[in-house]
């Protein structure tokens, strides 16, 4: 492998990794505090992307405004899901909530299909040519992607570790019963959690939609690698989610000269299994105590 190929693959891995990492970030929050793998995450992201498309359809071409709409819609959707379903399942087994989230994922996807139809939509964003540096293609849009992903991560980190509501979230994550007895309004904390999750889903859905095309199955398709990144990053670690997403993306792309392009998507699961066999709690699993 020559240097140019190596760096190209590395950069491609970074792009894919950041997209996956954002989805993993949304998974990770719920994983840590509400304690289940939220299978509906991908489909909530899809709804966000369609919200952005709808705003574009109104003639508003500002990506920032489109993203704002995606964020608001996803926040609202998450709170509705919490109020209608997840709150009623508090105290039930992880499996019960997981199964409910699969059901919700199906319902949301079916609704998107019925409302928006199967045809693809795209965000009309002017394309920029890559800058060629010694055979390495530098994509200007990558900068925006990185700023968005790390910005999102920083916001989530700040909310979790620097604000009173974040402190309460972590308390609930550590021990819900104890948190309740020490006077924390768990319901309010959970609403805050779902609002934050929704915001991340909105951003993640928009980022995915801008980089690819918007279709009803978009979010669902990215769910499995995002799951791998979320587990690998370790529950409750926003930095871990992004870093694990990056790591998986980079490993995946760098592996292609050796394993080819069809096996690369199996690689994130192989990596997941190997690492969990060695460290059952994930890479950053010890960063925040969960149980």
């Amino acid at each position: 492998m020559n240097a140019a190929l190596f760096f190209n693959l590395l950069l491609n891995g970074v792009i894919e990794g950041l997209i996956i990492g954002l989805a993993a970030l949304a998974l990770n929050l719920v994983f840590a505090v509400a304690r289940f793998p939220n299978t509906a995450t991908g489909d909530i992201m899809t709804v966000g992307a369609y919200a952005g498309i709808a705003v574009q359809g109104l003639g508003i071409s500002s990506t920032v405004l489109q993203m704002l709409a995606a964020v608001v819609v996803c926040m609202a959707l998450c709170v509705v899901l919490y109020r209608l379903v997840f709150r009623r399942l508090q105290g039930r087994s992880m499996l019960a909530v997981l199964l409910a989230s699969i059901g919700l994922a199906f319902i949301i996807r079916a609704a998107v299909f019925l409302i928006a139809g199967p045809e693809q939509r795209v965000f009309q964003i002017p394309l920029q040519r890559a800058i060629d540096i010694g055979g390495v293609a530098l994509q200007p849009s990558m900068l925006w992607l990185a700023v968005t992903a790390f910005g999102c991560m920083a916001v989530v980190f700040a909310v979790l570790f620097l604000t009173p509501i974040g402190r309460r979230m972590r308390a609930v994550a550590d021990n819900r019963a104890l948190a309740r007895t020490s006077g924390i309004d768990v319901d309010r904390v959970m609403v805050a959690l779902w609002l934050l999750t929704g915001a991340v889903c909105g951003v993640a859905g928009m980022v995915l939609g801008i980089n690819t095309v918007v279709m009803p199955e978009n979010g669902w398709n990215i769910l499995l690698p995002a799951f791998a990144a979320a587990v690998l990053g370790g529950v409750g670690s926003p930095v871990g989610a992004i870093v694990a997403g990056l790591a998986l993306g980079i490993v995946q792309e760098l592996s292609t000269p050796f394993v080819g392009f069809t096996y690369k998507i199996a690689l994130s699961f192989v990596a997941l299994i190997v690492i969990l066999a060695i460290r059952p709690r994930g890479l950053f699993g010890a960063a925040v105590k969960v149980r």
Partner: protein
Amino acid sequence: MSANTIDRRRLLGAAGTGALLWAVGGAGPARAGEPFRIGALNPITGAGSLYGAGMQKAIIFSAEEVNAAGGAGGRMLEVFPEDSQTQPDAGVLAAKRLIEVKKVHAIMGTWSSGVALAVMPIQEAAGVIHMTSAGASIISTQDKKDLVYRFSTTGQRSGRAIASILAKDGVQRVATMAFNNASGRDITDGVKGAWTEMGRKLVAEVVYEPNRPSYRSELQRILAGKPEAIVLGAYVPDTTIIVREAWQLNAKVKFIGPGYAVSPKLVESLGPEVAQGLMAVDYVSALNGAAYTHFAERYRKVVGGDPADGFFAACAYDMVQVTALAIEAAGGSADNAAIAAKLREVANPPGTPVSSFAEGKALLKAGQKVNYEGASGPLDFDEHGDVRPLFKLSVIRKGQLEFRQMLDLK
């Protein structure tokens, strides 16, 4: 509605009471005047849903036309619509229902290879005619009873058409990118086969897994071979992303793909600047034929939309017309095998070219030979029961798909 059109409730009742009386499928000789029952097994939902509804409607209005002309060989046609869900297991259950419950004589309009291949054992065992527009080459060889007829072509042949166009254009360096499924791979395999026969080699080839956030690494691998043209065995979403990323990477390369990928939807998604110069190779309906003109008019009215997008519906329309001609030629009491045996006789030369069942019926009655020239093409079946289709090449200029040339692959 005329008396000849299908009354669903009556049919349901008949099927319900009649079903238990017969043991196994409608393979025996027909009783004189017994309706010829057609199972329209189309991909209404799932991956083929863009085409399924149009195909089903075309089968129904095609059968209505036959009935309006007095039926074939004294038999009226009845259509029973079903959804294959573009899934083999759902297709099997639907075929079971059609053959066992509805007692159909023919299954028409299977679209994906998986469904066609899964339906075939049941249909062959029951002695039912099967007309498909699926692409997999193995369908031809799996048909042991000569009951399966293919109205579109294999992806391999599309690939060969693409290769011959590139060769004619003087392109030397060709690479392929394939979506990892049967249709995608068939196209690029066809290109590779034809290219190898010309004594040349592909400069690069990649098979990619779908539904990825990016195909940049795949593309860079291809571009490293410095191709002049990249053949895509792809669909609209992945083509959108690949062409966009190629533009971003400043790739000076031609893309050529199947018409269902390089489509107006793609142009709309990419914008005229990025889409400029993309080439589409498509099966072509017999644009100048009387059958196509008639079909296109009915398609606009019944299905809606541009009949140019309705190639598979045109195939489905022809399935009914040509079968009706075969029934007429075989006589009212012929069984399915005898009807199938007449298909080549009414569709292939020699014979007076006809563009509809009604036209052909009169000639057959007068004892003449006919050669049906369909809406989907000249419709001549080879020894496998496959047709040899026409292709057309279009190029995107200023956001419009411009017709370039027709291509008849011998």
